[in-house]
C-alpha cells in the first residue's frame, strides 16, 4: 500500500500540467476540429499540440493557453495539408450539390451539410489554400476564443483582431465560393 505522507514541494508551476490539460483540451480539440472537420483527427492534433507544449512551455507561462491553441491550429493545418496531398494524388473531386447550397443559404441544416464528406473536403481545401495565419485565425475564433485570446495567440494588438478576422472570413468565403464554381 502506497501512502503519501507529506508533500514537500510542488513544481514551479502553480497549475499542474494535468490540470492545464484537462482545462484546455476541449478548446484545443474544438479549434482543430474547425480545420479538420472530424473529431478523431482533431483529437490527434490536440494531443500533438500538448506534446509540443510539454516540451516548450509550462502551464504558468503567461502565454500558455494562447501558445497551446495556436499549436493545435498549426498541428491541424499540418494534418490537413497532408490529407490534401493524399487527396490530390487520388484525384478527389469536390462538388457541392443543390442541397448543400440551400443549407448555406440558410435554407437547410448546417450540421447535416457538414456531415457530407464533399462539403468537408471543400472546407478543407479552402482552408489549405488560405495563408496559415488566416486559417489559424478562423479556427481560433470559431473554436470559441475571444478577441483578447486571439490577440494573445497571434501576438497582435487586440484592436486589430476584428479587422484581421473580417479579412480572413472574406478570404475564406471567396475561396470557398471559388471552389464551388470550379
Amino acid at each position, binding site marked *: *500500500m*502506497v*501512502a*503519501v*505522507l*507529506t*508533500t*514537500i*514541494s*510542488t*513544481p*514551479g*508551476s502553480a497549475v*499542474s*500540467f*494535468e490540470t492545464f*490539460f*484537462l482545462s484546455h*483540451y*476541449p478548446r484545443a*480539440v*474544438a479549434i482543430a*476540429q*474547425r480545420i479538420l*472537420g472530424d*473529431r478523431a483527427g482533431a*483529437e490527434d492534433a*490536440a*494531443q500533438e499540440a*500538448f*506534446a509540443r507544449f*510539454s*516540451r516548450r512551455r*509550462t502551464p504558468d507561462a503567461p502565454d500558455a493557453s494562447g501558445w497551446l491553441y495556436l499549436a493545435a491550429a498549426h498541428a491541424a493545418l499540418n494534418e490537413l495539408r497532408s490529407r490534401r496531398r493524399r487527396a490530390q494524388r487520388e484525384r478527389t473531386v469536390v462538388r457541392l450539390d443543390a442541397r448543400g*447550397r440551400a*443549407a*448555406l*443559404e*440558410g435554407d437547410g441544416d*448546417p*450540421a447535416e*451539410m*457538414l456531415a457530407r464528406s464533399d*462539403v468537408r473536403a471543400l*472546407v478543407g481545401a479552402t482552408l489549405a489554400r488560405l495563408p496559415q495565419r488566416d486559417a489559424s485565425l*478562423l*479556427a481560433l475564433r*470559431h473554436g*470559441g476564443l475571444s478577441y483578447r485570446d486571439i490577440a494573445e495567440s497571434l501576438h497582435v494588438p487586440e484592436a486589430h483582431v476584428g479587422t484581421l478576422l*473580417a479579412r480572413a*472570413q*472574406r478570404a*475564406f*468565403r471567396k475561396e*470557398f*465560393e471559388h471552389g*464551388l*464554381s470550379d
Partner: protein
Amino acid sequence: MAFPIDDDTFCAQLLGSDEPVDARAAYERFAAQRVTRRPWQGYAAGFALAAAVLVAALFLTPLGTYARGFLTIFEAKQFAPIDVSSLPTSHAIALNLSDFGTLRAPNMHVSAIPEWRDVDAAAGYHVLVPSYLPAHLPPSSGYRIAGATTNTFTFSARKARDAEARLGHRLPPVPRDLDGSTVSAQMGTIAERFWGAAKDEPTLAVMQMPAPIVRSNGATLAQLERYLLGMPGISPELAVQIRAIGNPASTLPVPFRADKQSVQHVNVNGAPGIAIGDETGVGAAVMWQTHGMLHVVGGALPESEVLKVADGLH
C-alpha cells in the same frame, strides 16, 4: 455564386460546432503515449543515471553534480530530498572532481538477461516482480543486470591548488585531514526490467539493488560536509537543507529541482521512500528502501501509475 448571409455566419456554419470531449480519457491516452525524454529519467532511466542518483554522482561528474549527489559515509536507509534549483551550472561545467583528487570509477558491466527465470541467479538476490502494470505499455520489454562496482575518490590538496591557479576560481583549500583520504562507494548488482526503448528512454523501468554503502579511510562525515558546503555555488539555502538532514549517516540525499519537479514522502508497503514527479505530470519516479534493498520505479507515466507499480511489487 453568392450566399445571402454575412461572412461571419457563413464561416461559422462551414467550420462546424463543438461536440462533447472526454478530456480525462484524452489525458490518460496522452500520458500513456508519452515516451519522450523526461526529467524523471535522471532518476530512473538506465543504470548510469540510476547510479548517478544513488551514489556514483559523487564520483562520476563535475562539481555541480558532486554537490547534488552529496553523500556521506553512510548506509542508505532513508531519503532526504534536496532542492538544487539554486546550483549554478557554470561551476558544474568549469570544475571537475579531478580538480580535487583522483577518481577511480570502473565502468559498470551491463548484460542483458534473456529469460526472467535467470535474473535472480544473475543478480544474486530475489528480484521483485510487478503484479500491476499500466495499460498501453510498449510490447517490448527486457531485463538487464549491471555488475557490482566500487568507486573511489582520493582527495589531493595539490590538485586543488593547481586547479585554483588554472581556473582562476577561489576554491576552499582541502583540509589537512582530508588530503590523501580515500572515500569509497560500494554499489551492489543492479537488476532492471524495462518496457520500451532500453537504451535511455524506457516507458517504465523497475530497478532494484542492494543499498549502497560509502566508506572512508580517514575523512569523517563532518569533514566532508564542511568541505562540500564551502564549495563555490553552494547557496545558503542549499547548505541549510544539507545541514538539516536528520541522520546523515543513513540518509540518502536525493537532488531535485523545485522549479520543475514535485516531491512527496511516500510509504511503499510500510517502507519510507520518496516520489518525484515532473512538471508535465507524465513523468515520475518513486524510490524506497526495504530489507537492505533499494528500489526505483520510474517512467514516462503519471505519478499515480508509477506508485501503483511500486505498490504491486512482490
